[in-house]
């Protein structure tokens, strides 16, 4: 704002208001601006968190308001951490996390590397590749459900075309062996573009003169790739892995739309299981302890994520 406009604003401020503001220190004015945000943060984030921690030590059930709430100490945590069914849910989540991240990084980096080469229609291809990421998970879940239909689904016909197996001989969403892979395929299809964009940013941040210097030193393309490209993109890749890891740890909507956690509980990820405990079985205290366990895990991963982010910024 120029000096003139500052003067005009000062002149337009009513005298009593101006007198009040002039009486406040810079620190007080800063607090006035920050206070609403802090209040909202406390009300929306901190208060529910503290309440959840408190509930996690009780046998509270949200559907039985009049019932006496007893403090049961660490029993909820003990039950969750010795429950082999929840352990299986954790393993299903681990399978989902590992393979989605593996495929997304592999395909995302390859796509970014290809897109980074200058060719005709480069921008158009980038837009087309990025499209799945812009769709709602509920929509993606629903239309992949149709694609996976054994009778009319396109997916089975494509597999038939490659393998020769009968389209109706396998069911992606109904089979215990295939269902965990079906959710991996959909999440990979949807979120690979995100990893690609991060990798592309990393690739474009590498200055050309480094490659020119390597060319002068007669370094082969393969050597350039492993000694320049990979090390310089690595922090970005790490960032993508951590970001997708945290997001997929909380995955809910896409999997609920696709399999609903089934068949049996083969695709029941922790967030789906948590929702069942909290809002179907109404074991609120138990679900609170479960939520705190997941929260601490995600918070821990987020701490590493912030550290990695700072390292990327330092570059």
């Amino acid at each position: 704002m120029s000096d003139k406009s500052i003067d005009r604003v000062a002149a337009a401020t009513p005298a009593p208001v101006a007198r009040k503001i002039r009486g406040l220190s810079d620190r007080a004015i800063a607090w006035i601006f920050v206070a609403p945000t802090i209040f909202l943060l406390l009300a929306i984030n901190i208060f529910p968190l503290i309440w959840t921690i408190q509930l996690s030590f009780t046998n509270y059930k949200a559907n039985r308001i009049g019932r006496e709430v007893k403090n049961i100490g660490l029993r909820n945590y003990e039950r969750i951490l010795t429950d082999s069914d929840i352990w299986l849910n954790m393993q299903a989540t681990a399978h989902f996390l590992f393979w989605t991240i593996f495929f997304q990084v592999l395909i995302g980096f390859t796509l970014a590397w290809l897109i980074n080469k200058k060719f005709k229609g480069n921008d158009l291809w980038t837009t087309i590749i990025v499209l799945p990421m812009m769709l709602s998970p509920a929509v993606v879940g629903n239309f992949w459900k149709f694609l996976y239909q054994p009778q009319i689904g396109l997916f089975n016909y494509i597999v038939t075309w490659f393998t020769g197996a009968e389209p109706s001989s396998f069911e992606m969403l109904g089979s215990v062996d295939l269902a965990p892979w079906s959710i991996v395929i959909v999440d990979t299809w949807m979120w690979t573009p995100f990893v690609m964009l991060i990798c592309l940013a990393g690739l474009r941040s590498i200055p050309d003169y480094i490659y020119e210097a390597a060319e002068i030193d007669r370094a082969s393309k393969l050597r350039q790739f492993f000694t320049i490209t990979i090390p310089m993109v690595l922090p970005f890749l790490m960032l993508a892995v951590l970001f997708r890891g945290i997001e997929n740890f909380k995955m809910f909507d896409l999997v609920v739309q696709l399999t609903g956690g089934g068949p049996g509980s083969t695709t029941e990820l922790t967030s789906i299981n948590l929702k069942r405990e909290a809002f179907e079985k109404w074991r609120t205290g138990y679900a609170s302890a479960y939520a705190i366990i997941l929260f601490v895990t995600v918070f821990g991963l987020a701490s590493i994520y912030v550290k990695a982010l700072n390292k990327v910024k330092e570059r």
Partner: protein
Amino acid sequence: MKNFLSGLARLRRGPWEFVATLLIALGVFMLMQPFALWAYTYSFIVTLVGTVMFIIVSHFKE
């Protein structure tokens, strides 16, 4: 290794953050591994210690 140990002894942020990060990673691995139920049982306490340690040591001097 010597630098790392002296960093730990002089309460420097880098090495302590590294230890905390290792604990968090170990805790997450223990939570999701399919090999031993006891590791799953103790995963939360390992992650919690790592996370709390990370919050504390991130205030140490560089």
